[in-house]
């Protein structure tokens, strides 16, 4: 994937959770922009190596590191490797996520701990071990999700809580890193069509909502990755402590043409279709 945005050549970028899904899209886009990419995942090493190889075959530079960012010792080793190999880290995009699906009221401490460790403590560990490698102009971007601000079916509550915690961590981290000229933000998006959606039993419903209830429709992977790129370029140096929604206008509008009629009609067509077809 390529865009014309400037300012990315030779930057060292670590993208956690980039063997598949949105992380992979971001890693491949960064690679296409001339960044030296560290592809990372805890599982799926075959996919991770293929991502590194595909970036290289497209003319970019990438390595793959299998490491679980939910484990402190792995993060420490990962940081040592980045320091030894590249000497610094310009961009950290944290996409690795995971956790056991469970209704909140049935979750034991083990599930809570796991969700918080993988989705939230990992950000702290990454900031501690990799933050010292980041120069002025460095960028940290955390991939959050809508689960941080709304209840989502499918037992997503624990992960959602961890994502919400991470968004708060992003704000404090942005504050702490501000005098070093490092900006820290989160990116929140809706259901994006990638193979990783297979982990959600409710994937089809999420996609349908993201497509139909956002006035622009669901964002394609490239647009999500390009927004991540934008937030990691010098153009966005003064954007910090923010949660940026890439949702096609979903959160900010009540878009139900099936109930209100088409957008362009004056008065919204309320009268015409207050009662949805098929009811009563």
């Amino acid at each position, binding site marked *: 994937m390529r865009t014309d945005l400037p300012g990315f050549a030779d930057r060292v970028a670590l993208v956690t959770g980039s063997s*598949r899904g949105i992380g992979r899209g971001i890693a491949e886009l960064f690679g296409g922009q001339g960044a030296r990419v560290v592809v990372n995942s805890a599982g799926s090493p075959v996919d991770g190596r293929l991502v590194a190889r595909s970036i290289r075959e497209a003319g970019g530079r990438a390595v793959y590191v299998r490491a*679980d960012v939910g484990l402190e010792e792995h993060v420490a*080793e990962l940081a040592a490797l980045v320091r030894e190999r590249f000497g610094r880290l310009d961009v950290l995009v944290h996409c690795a996520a995971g956790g056991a699906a469970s209704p909140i009221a049935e979750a034991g401490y083990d599930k809570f701990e796991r969700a918080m460790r993988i989705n939230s403590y990992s950000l702290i560990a990454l900031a501690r071990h990799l933050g010292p490698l980041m120069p002025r102009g460095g960028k940290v971007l955390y991939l959050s999700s809508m689960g941080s601000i709304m209840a989502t079916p499918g037992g997503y509550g624990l992960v959602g809580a961890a994502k919400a915690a991470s968004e708060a961590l992003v704000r404090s981290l942005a504050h702490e890193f501000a005098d070093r000229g490092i900006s820290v933000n989160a990116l929140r998006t809706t259901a994006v069509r990638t193979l990783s959606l297979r982990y959600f039993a409710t994937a089809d419903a999420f996609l349908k909502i993201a497509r139909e209830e956002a006035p622009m429709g669901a964002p394609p992977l490239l647009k999500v990755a390009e927004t991540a790129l934008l937030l990691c370029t010098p153009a966005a140096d003064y954007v910090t402590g923010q949660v940026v929604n890439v949702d096609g206008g979903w959160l900010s509008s009540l878009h139900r043409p099936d109930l209100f009629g088409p957008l362009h009609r004056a008065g919204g067509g309320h009268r015409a279709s207050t009662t949805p077809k098929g009811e009563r």
Partner: protein
Amino acid sequence: MSETSTEEAVPVQVQLAVRVLFGDEFLDRADRRFLRSFQGDPARWGRLMLDTWAVISGVVDDVPAPRAALPERPAPAPPPAAVGQPRTEPPPTAPAPAPVTAPPAGSAATGTVAAQAGAATSIDFFDPDDEPDEPAPAGRDVGQVKQRLVEVIAEASGYPPEVLDEDLDLEVDLGIDSVKQVHAVARIREEYGLTMDEDFQIGDYATIGKLAGYVADRVSSAG
């Protein structure tokens, strides 16, 4: 897409489970008889799920299957060591299992933390630049591909390499299920640097001989 016909023939629960486990592409391309065969056979379904989880979480890469006793003649039989069966200690001759690593990020649907217990103590590093520019070290020779396939399938199935005759049907004669076959092919594909083939159907290449021919063809057309 054959989605309409799949919807007609395969129960919706099976479709959902397959979609969760393998993704839409797999469901679209899967053999409908294969999907229907899970109906009314929960044990088979359970094994498939456990095997799949093991494959996608990378556990299979790390834990060698216990070796089975050498059969006189490979007869139609269940695989000697399905990954999904309760794992027993390997016999003393087998190498010690490597540490089991954590499940992949995003594996919420599997709902298990079992693999977390023995977290790996070290990270792995891979640099494509360290690889030789020639992507296929074993060359375009069908014989060499065959030999490598035998090694990989022996490791995945627990059969000794010497019983894996190239003309035996992997599923019918050896009881090696399609998940293990797909895993073996994925590994070979990676070793030979081959990209995903959209038209590949594991059922079209039921024997080691046919698979080796396929891989060798891909390798030579890529080079």
